[in-house]
């Protein structure tokens, strides 16, 4: 087996008496979609924050491309190639869709300390951002401010922002939440191809999406990984059916 791109080892996090992450170890390998499922409050988003550096861990480590990420902040981890999306869309509301993506493009290029050139006439920046918007089918809405985008369009913009970083791993926190059946279907086929660019750690509640996309699934309950395996293994795991699938089915 090759080395995993992302390796989470014995990660822990408590909020007071609540154990949100309980000795979690998972890996993400090149070319795969690893789905992380579990009921609300299981600690999925918390785990993403720990990986990205937004939350410090009580113990354990995150190894990314062979490098221990301990001590690095969110921005440094993003620069190393962690591209995440937020469960609740987090964009620059006063900026248009295009300018949001332009921000991510300039950040990825490490050129945020250029003081004089007007970004609106910066053809390279605009073209690159437009191309990324086109990938998420948002080019028709490029000049609409993020505040005026629909909920679903903002979810697409989230993906575009991650794409612009050309990350080495995607961490997607419920990208389909509230997208509508048509939007979800298109996103599923998009993510299906995306795994070739970089592996995806996918948190998702939409079980159709998970079962059709995932190479591997891990189930998180009360901060613990209770099961991990292929789609079929997870589908037929009695503990999982009881703890999670049983409740939602």
């Amino acid at each position, binding site marked *: 087996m090759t080395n995993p791109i992302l390796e989470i080892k014995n990660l822990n996090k408590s909020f007071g008496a609540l154990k949100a992450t309980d000795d979690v170890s998972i890996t993400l390998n090149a070319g795969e979609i690893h789905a992380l499922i579990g009921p609300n409050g299981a600690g999925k988003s918390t785990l993403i924050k720990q990986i990205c550096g937004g939350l410090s861990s009580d113990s354990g480590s995150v190894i990314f491309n062979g490098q221990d990420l301990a001590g690095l902040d969110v921005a440094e981890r993003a620069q190393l190639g962690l591209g995440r999306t*937020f469960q609740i869309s987090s964009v620059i509301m006063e900026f248009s869709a295009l*300018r949001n993506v332009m921000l991510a493009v300039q950040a990825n290029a490490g050129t945020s300390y*250029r003081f004089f050139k007007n970004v609106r006439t910066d053809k390279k920046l605009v073209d690159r951002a437009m191309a990324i918007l086109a990938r998420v089918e948002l080019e028709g809405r490029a000049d609409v401010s993020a505040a005026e985008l629909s909920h679903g369009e903002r979810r697409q913009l989230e993906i575009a922002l991650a794409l612009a970083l050309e990350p080495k791993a995607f961490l997607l926190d419920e990208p389909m939440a509230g997208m509508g059946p048509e939007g979800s279907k298109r996103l599923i086929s998009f993510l299906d191809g995306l795994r070739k660019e970089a592996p995806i750690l996918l948190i998702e509640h939409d079980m159709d999406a998970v079962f059709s996309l995932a190479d591997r699934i891990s189930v998180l309950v009360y901060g613990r990984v209770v099961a991990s395996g292929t789609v079929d293994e997870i589908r037929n795991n009695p503990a999982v059916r009881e703890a999670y699938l049983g409740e939602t089915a």
Partner: protein
Amino acid sequence: MASLSRETLLNIFLTIGMLALPFVATAIDEPFYITLATRVAILGLAGVGLNLALGTGGLVSFGHAAFFGLGGYAAGILASHALNYTPIMESPFLIEGTNQMLIIWLVAIIVSGIGAYLIGLLSLRTSGVYFIMITLAFAQMIYYFAISWPAYGGEDGLSIYVRNAFPGVNTLDPQGFYFICFALLMAGIWLSATLKNSRFGAALQSARQNEERLSAVGVKPFNIKLTAFVISGMMTGLAGALFADLNRFVSPSMLSWHMSGEIMILVILGGVGRLYGPLAGAIIYIIFEFIFGGMTEHWQFFLGLVLLGVVLFARGGVIGLIAGRARHD
């Protein structure tokens, strides 16, 4: 109207008005108006500096008097040494005073920039009310230091007996000095517009709106804000040097929280984040001071009422009232 927005037209109108003012003042034989206009330009520039931090970056600094005063003292100290033919220091190397504005400005910009860097380094870790309080506290610290430092006049301040010199311009002529200040105001406005439209400006506006997003794309909000704070402090510091030359006098009052409040009030009056907001605010401020200041010493009470009105009913300040809401893209 297709190409020029109402705000742009208003900006052009203000620019032309400021350009014409000294000629009108001379024509109607009211030279004092030129001094008032010079105050407008200088306070406007101080406000342009603050507006970069406050409007573009969302950094509510209540300590910009620190930079205004540092710039002012840089001018005063350099000029007083030049006048007395005494060096500022002899070892480890010789530093002499100067009466050249160009050098004085450079020193004022550097000194206030260093001040902004140090204050920013310590205060930008906080936000909201804490940031307001800590910037206020640092400015007051420098204020009390100036009061208790006898070498440069302490409480009494420091006089600049002859206005400093600028190559090719008679700075003793009110018009000459006015146009120097006006040119620097325009340069400041140009710089802040340029910065806002740049990649740095995009990052700075993002830092104001959503730090979480900015860091998620790999930019450290702290560094962006600190950079903006330093540039902001430098512009306000330059205004302070001009203010010293206008009054031919520097005193600790330039460093006091009243001054910070004054700069902030004129930015809010004119319109936070609006390019010409600080200039519009400075015009209103000086007109109020001139008209009501002559009638009652409580003129600031009336200004307070107007400010309250702006905060409650016109969030975009006067510019917003006339030109409508800011456009985003």
